């Protein structure tokens, strides 16, 4: 689907209020339409649901009393029934979310200091976490043992805090990025998904690509190469980038803006390039910490989380 309409804008659909401190991150439920979770420095996680009747979001649950410090990151399992939450208290909690209730399934301990990010793999069998202790942990869920978790690897290649981990959308390949200014790609020894975008305190976004067929054939080391750098758009740290299924890159930064980029379709000798589609100034009153596209690409909904304690839902639509 091409996104080249000249009159596209980001319109604010709703502001979700409730958190009492900065909101670090948001995550859409991959299996349940209109369900989104947010996590905050107020030590809680909120789950918001869109009513099929009124079409507006309300807070359906507050997960509290478990984490004792900021909850920095959260991730739904692919089936949408489990929610993993990573906290500065050093633990990762896995919750089972029912229609009217939620229950802590497991508390994963092991990191020596703040956990900064958590991610499920495509099949929901593995969880990855990372933190200030410079390590990346991989946990396996054991369904035959009442969903207990087993540590299967502790990866110590980074020389400084690891800030984020993310699994490839289809393969068991893990990406980690760090305070040591590097991005590492990890595969075990036995979608499209051939491009990724990264963002940094250096005020730029970078796009990388790989040869996906070589990766899928299990070739071993397959390089990722730098394709393009997007700079000059944000003038404060870019905290979050997310690539939608229909090819729109959203970015959220410390300059309070949310910006959208697409492939400019004018390939030059130097390779593909990307252009700015929308710049939403003052998307929030303070830093934007996270942007996430909803999985259903038809609806073109984007969620954002900010230091101003708000979660906002946006729609990419033609301006009147």
């Amino acid at each position, binding site marked *: 689907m091409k996104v080249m309409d000249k009159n596209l804008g980001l319109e604010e659909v709703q502001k979700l209020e409730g958190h009492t401190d*900065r909101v670090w991150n948001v995550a859409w439920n991959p299996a349940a339409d209109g369900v989104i979770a947010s996590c905050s*420095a107020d030590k809680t996680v909120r789950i918001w649901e869109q009513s099929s009747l009124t079409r507006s979001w309300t807070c359906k649950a507050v997960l509290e009393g478990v984490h004792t*410090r*900021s909850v*920095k990151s959260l991730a739904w399992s692919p089936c949408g029934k489990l929610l993993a939450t990573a906290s*500065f208290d050093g633990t990762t909690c896995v919750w089972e979310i029912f229609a009217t209730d939620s229950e802590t399934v497991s508390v994963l301990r092991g990191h020596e200091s*703040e956990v*900064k990010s958590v991610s499920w793999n495509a099949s929901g069998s593995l969880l990855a976490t990372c933190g*200030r202790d410079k390590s990346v942990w991989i946990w396996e869920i054991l369904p035959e043992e009442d969903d207990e978790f087993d540590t299967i690897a502790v990866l110590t290649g980074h020389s400084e*805090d690891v*800030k984020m981990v993310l699994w490839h959308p289809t393969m068991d390949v893990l990406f980690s990025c760090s*305070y040591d200014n590097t991005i590492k790609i990890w595969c075990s020894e036995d979608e499209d998904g051939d491009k990724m975008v990264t963002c940094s*305190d250096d005020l730029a976004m970078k796009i990388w690509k790989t040869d996906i067929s070589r990766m899928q054939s299990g070739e071993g080391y397959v390089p990722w190469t730098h394709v393009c750098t997007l700079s000059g758009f944000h003038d*404060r*740290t870019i*905290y979050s980038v997310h690539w939608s299924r229909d090819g729109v890159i959203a970015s959220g930064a*410390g300059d*309070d803006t949310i910006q959208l980029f697409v492939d400019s379709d004018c390939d030059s000798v130097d390779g593909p390039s990307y252009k700015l589609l929308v710049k939403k100034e003052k998307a929030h*009153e*303070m*830093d934007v910490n996270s942007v996430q596209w909803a999985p259903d690409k038809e609806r073109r909904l984007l969620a954002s989380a900010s*230091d*101003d304690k708000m979660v906002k839902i946006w729609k990419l639509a033609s301006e009147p």
Partner: protein
Amino acid sequence: MTLGLINANPVVQAKKEGLVRREDQYRDDGVDPLEMTKYVRDIRDPEHPYTLEQLRVVSEESVTVDDKLDRILITFTPTIQHCSMANIIGLCLRAKLKECLQLHYKVDIRVSPGSHADEVSVNKQLNDKERVVAALENPNLRQLVDECIYSDEI
């Protein structure tokens, strides 16, 4: 945490008397550097019973305000090149300013150019938001910071 003071012999200045505000330079509802300096100058040094102003760690020249974008840059000068208290001082400055400023102001904190042996690394730590938030959530660090910013004037 007492392995001997990092800098046992700091140079101490007399406290400045009133600072003169420049009337027309900054907009009414904004902030001006002199006002910012007043907020931070009496923060107590983490190691010595003197204020940051007395130790010349901060001065009127420390604060730069971008009035249009509501951004503030504070540079401070540790008393010695290998000062390991630089991070604590940075946290104190940030915690104090958070109380005094409207929430939407953006604050960058750096050591004065050339004043610290690990300048790049210290500046990176002082401005990494998740590290700063995590540090201020640590009860021990928070207590030390509170003692520095809430101490009575000498």
